[in-house]
């Protein structure tokens, strides 16, 4: 409307600024909004910096919303601009590039700055705070550069996460802490005393009662000197002792501030029309340094803005938050909420296993919990703390909580602390929003998209709400909501032979393409490899039969049955490495040799010169069968592990599977081939073979279940083969055996594969599928397309004018 400026300007594009914009848009589609971001990127998820410090992932992936969101929601986004002055009378503010913006009302969300102690040496090179992506990159690069030792000043949540990130780069690290226990703001002495040993197990040293007096230079940091005169060498120093609310802008316009900008219960500052939210704000004496309170504050602030615009008084109130925190350090489970002590406390502790569980009660109500090492029931306990639930027997409550799952929680229990999503929101996404899988629910509610620690709880709740355990892989094609079972039935019934047949019949795989490889496997499996192969449905690895790497080159792993090779093979491998200038030859974790960094166009030549079959190291297929030396040479050998391993590998070679299948055969229970943590594993025991399946030693570790113990090598191969086919036919795409068996149930698996008739039918189908396999590396002489391994470059690109009629 002309002459009337209704614009709301949000100063600061952190989690708080973004949350205010979103909460405002939920309530009012039209009110003009401008978000001014001081940093050089659109709002991002600061919480996940800890994760990125460990993984090295690109900080671009932290963005809270894609670029389109701002256009779609009509929020004007100014990136890389600071607000330098505000004229409250004229309702105008100034940006650092001397542009001016008019506003009606203002939300200050300027966050905080890391606190840096004024000690000598604090400005030296090699000294960093841990606050933004640039800090994260600098710390990671320094930690990975081969320095001797790093130090983290401060043993709070953030300091410990920084130390973990540094240790993950292989760098020795010491946390120096002023007090005599870690995370003293959240933990009591009992939990703290168990935390230090747990950190030691992750190669993080802790030194207590260390008051840093100086950072030793001269050019760059080389160590710390403490007030007691002792020193600690360190070439990288991360300072994490707290935050200082960023209230300068507010102060400069006369807003009443203490540590932070003082706000009332409606999130209003002392100046009419100016609100403050997030780490810059101080509410009832408290400055919160956590995300969950920000969402509550943002909702109230948005409501206040909307009510005021409508001429009404503030009708929503923020009454403070109960702080809760999770330590995001892999290998240590720690959740705490509320106060660390009360007038009645129940504690269950086991120092040997590092478990500490505590519930604190005051005046008959739950006021705090600390869960270390065993966080079962944390959602219920944190919810009890938040609502101040009355409790009679806290010890019983602790015990009950460890038995209850997230699905038993009340709707108001907050599940995702990063995004402030309650259980009721998740259930509504299923019942009203039509979501069917955890992934869909996470996309809609944004639960689980922050630090990720609530994802297991989200999955459980969604599974309960959708009425089935069969959650994530339920849809092979989520766009069209088609299941693997449904599609398999249609393929069988209509005699479909290829991915494009299926697409034509039911429109899968055309919209987003993500399910094409899953369909390709399904078609090949249902048709017992008599299908029509369409390579465009395959991932690049299965088009060129090699594994793509970070720079677009490929790796080549020839088949080495059972990990056994010959001098002649080794010579050929060496010659190939020389001839094609292969950058690295490496012994793999699967007992084979890997040629890494190979150019795509060199692949056919290399395969020809090697003269060995493909090891399928790039495919969802039967992979390695690791073996130990067994009876051939070992003095303990009870069974011929090499023999059985080679037999298995040859019997299954070339078969594709829902996910990779890795096997192992050990000649005795000492288990040198690690067969008990393989997808399929055989272990020779006195009097026979133990046949196992469903083991894992990757992202998860799971001991394989014993399918049966059989007497002969032949029977072991038979049973393992039966299981393989059962898995091929019944697992969802990308479902490893370690998820498959628990989903189906071990008893159910045994019942089918040990049944003579059904087992025999499974083996027969495997035999038919196997007969149609061939070594994919033979495509070196018979490519499916002239440019299977080549880009267009050999064509000399000719410049011509615009094509006919071509005013493009």
């Amino acid at each position: 409307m002309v002459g009337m400026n209704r614009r709301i300007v949000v100063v600061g594009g952190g989690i708080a600024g973004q949350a205010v914009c979103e909460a405002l848009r939920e309530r009012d589609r039209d009110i003009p909004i401008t978000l001014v971001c001081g940093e050089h990127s659109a709002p991002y998820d600061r919480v996940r910096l800890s994760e990125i410090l460990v993984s090295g992932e690109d900080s671009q992936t932290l963005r809270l919303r894609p670029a389109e969101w701002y256009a779609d929601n009509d929020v004007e986004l100014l990136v890389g601009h600071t607000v330098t002055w505000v004229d409250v009378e004229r309702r105008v503010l100034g940006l650092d590039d001397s542009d001016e913006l008019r506003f009606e009302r203002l939300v200050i969300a300027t966050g905080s700055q890391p606190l840096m102690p004024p000690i000598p040496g604090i400005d030296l090179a090699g000294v960093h705070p841990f606050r933004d992506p640039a800090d994260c990159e600098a710390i990671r690069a320094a930690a990975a550069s081969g320095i001797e030792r790093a130090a983290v000043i401060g043993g709070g949540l953030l300091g410990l996460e920084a130390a973990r990130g540094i240790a993950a780069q292989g760098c020795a690290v010491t946390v120096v802490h002023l007090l005599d226990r870690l995370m003293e703001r959240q933990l009591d002495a009992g939990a703290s005393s168990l935390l230090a040993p747990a950190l030691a197990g992750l190669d993080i040293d802790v030194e207590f009662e260390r008051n840093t007096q100086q950072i030793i230079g001269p050019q760059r940091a080389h160590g710390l000197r403490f007030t007691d005169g002792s020193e600690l060498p360190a070439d990288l120093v991360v300072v994490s002792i707290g935050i200082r609310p960023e209230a300068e802008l507010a102060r400069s316009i006369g807003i009443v501030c203490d540590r932070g900008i003082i706000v009332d219960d409606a999130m209003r500052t002392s100046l009419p029309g100016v609100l403050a939210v997030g780490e810059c704000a101080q509410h009832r004496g408290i400055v919160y340094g956590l995300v969950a309170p920000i969402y509550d504050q943002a909702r109230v602030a948005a409501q206040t803005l909307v009510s005021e615009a409508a001429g009404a008084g503030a009708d929503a109130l923020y009454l403070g938050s109960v702080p809760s925190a999770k330590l995001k350090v892999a290998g240590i489970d720690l959740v705490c909420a509320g106060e660390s002590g009360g007038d009645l406390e129940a504690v269950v502790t086991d120092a040997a296993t590092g478990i500490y569980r505590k519930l604190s009660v005051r005046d008959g109500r739950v006021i705090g919990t600390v869960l270390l090492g065993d966080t079962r029931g944390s959602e219920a306990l944190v919810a009890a703390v938040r609502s101040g639930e009355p409790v009679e027997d806290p010890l019983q409550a602790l015990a009950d909580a460890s038995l209850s799952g997230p699905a038993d929680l009340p709707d108001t229990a907050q599940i995702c602390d990063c995004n402030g999503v309650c259980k009721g929101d998740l259930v509504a996404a299923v019942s009203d929003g039509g979501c069917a899988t955890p992934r869909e629910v996470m996309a809609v509610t944004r639960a689980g998209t922050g630090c990720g620690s609530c994802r297991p709880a989200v999955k459980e709740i969604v599974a309960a709400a959708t009425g089935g355990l069969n959650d994530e892989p339920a849809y092979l094609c989520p766009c069209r909501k088609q299941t693997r079972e449904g599609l398999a039935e249609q393929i069988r019934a209509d005699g479909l032979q290829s991915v494009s047949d299926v697409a034509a019949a039911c429109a899968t795989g055309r919209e987003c393409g993500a399910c094409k490889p899953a369909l390709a496997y399904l078609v090949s499996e249902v048709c017992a490899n008599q299908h029509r192969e369409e390579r465009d449905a395959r991932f690049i690895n299965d088009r060129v039969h090699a594994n793509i790497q970070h720079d677009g080159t490929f790796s080549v792993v020839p088949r080495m049955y059972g990990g056994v090779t010959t001098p002649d093979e080794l010579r050929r491998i060496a010659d190939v490495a020389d001839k094609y200038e292969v950058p690295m030859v490496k012994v793999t974790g699967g007992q084979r040799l890997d040629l890494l960094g190979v150019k795509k166009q060199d692949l056919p030549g290399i395969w020809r010169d090697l003269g060995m079959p493909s090891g399928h190291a790039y495919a969802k297929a039967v992979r390695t069968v690791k073996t130990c030396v067994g009876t051939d040479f070992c003095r303990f050998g009870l069974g011929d592990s090499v023999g059985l391993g080679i037999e298995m590998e040859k019997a299954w070679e070339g078969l594709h599977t829902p996910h990779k299948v890795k096997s192992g055969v050990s000649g005795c229970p000492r288990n040198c081939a690690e067969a008990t943590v393989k997808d399929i594993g055989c272990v020779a025991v006195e009097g026979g073979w133990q046949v196992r399946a469903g083991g894992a030693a990757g992202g998860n570790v799971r001991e394989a279940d014993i399918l049966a113990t059989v007497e002969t090598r032949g029977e072991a191969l038979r049973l393992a083969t039966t299981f393989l086919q059962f898995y091929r036919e019944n697992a969802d795409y990308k479902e490893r055996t370690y998820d498959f068996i628990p989903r189906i149930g071990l008893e159910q698996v045994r019942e089918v594969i040990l049944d003579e008739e059904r087992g025999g039918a499974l083996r027969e189908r495997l035999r038919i599928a196997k007969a149609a396999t061939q070594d994919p590396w033979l495509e070196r002489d018979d490519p499916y397309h002239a440019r299977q391994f080549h880009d267009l470059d050999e064509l000399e690109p000719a410049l011509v004018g615009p094509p006919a009629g071509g005013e493009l």
Partner: protein
Amino acid sequence: MSTAAALAHDACSVEDIPLGEGRAVTLDGRRIAIFRAGGGWYALDAACPHRGGPLADGIVCDRAVICPLHDRRFDLQSGSALTTGNAVAAHAVEVRGARVFVTLAAAERGAA
């Protein structure tokens, strides 16, 4: 766009790219990925804006391509990012007879 600068490059023949796949080529010093999708011919800058993944090696469907390295997805027509992150430059493609012509878009274009 209607300037004389909009030169169409004769990039390849129709047969050079299998249906449903992409291939890369250098045009005017720029690496370009050309796609023969179910929905028609398209061209994008060859490098994924995330970490430079080879988009020509991605999985292609009617209107989009998925980067083979970390699964970012791009609209083939506009180059806009369908998952998170920045967009990639899109170029005009025209098929004349058996030849495929690409007209490069202006050099820089990214997401806001």
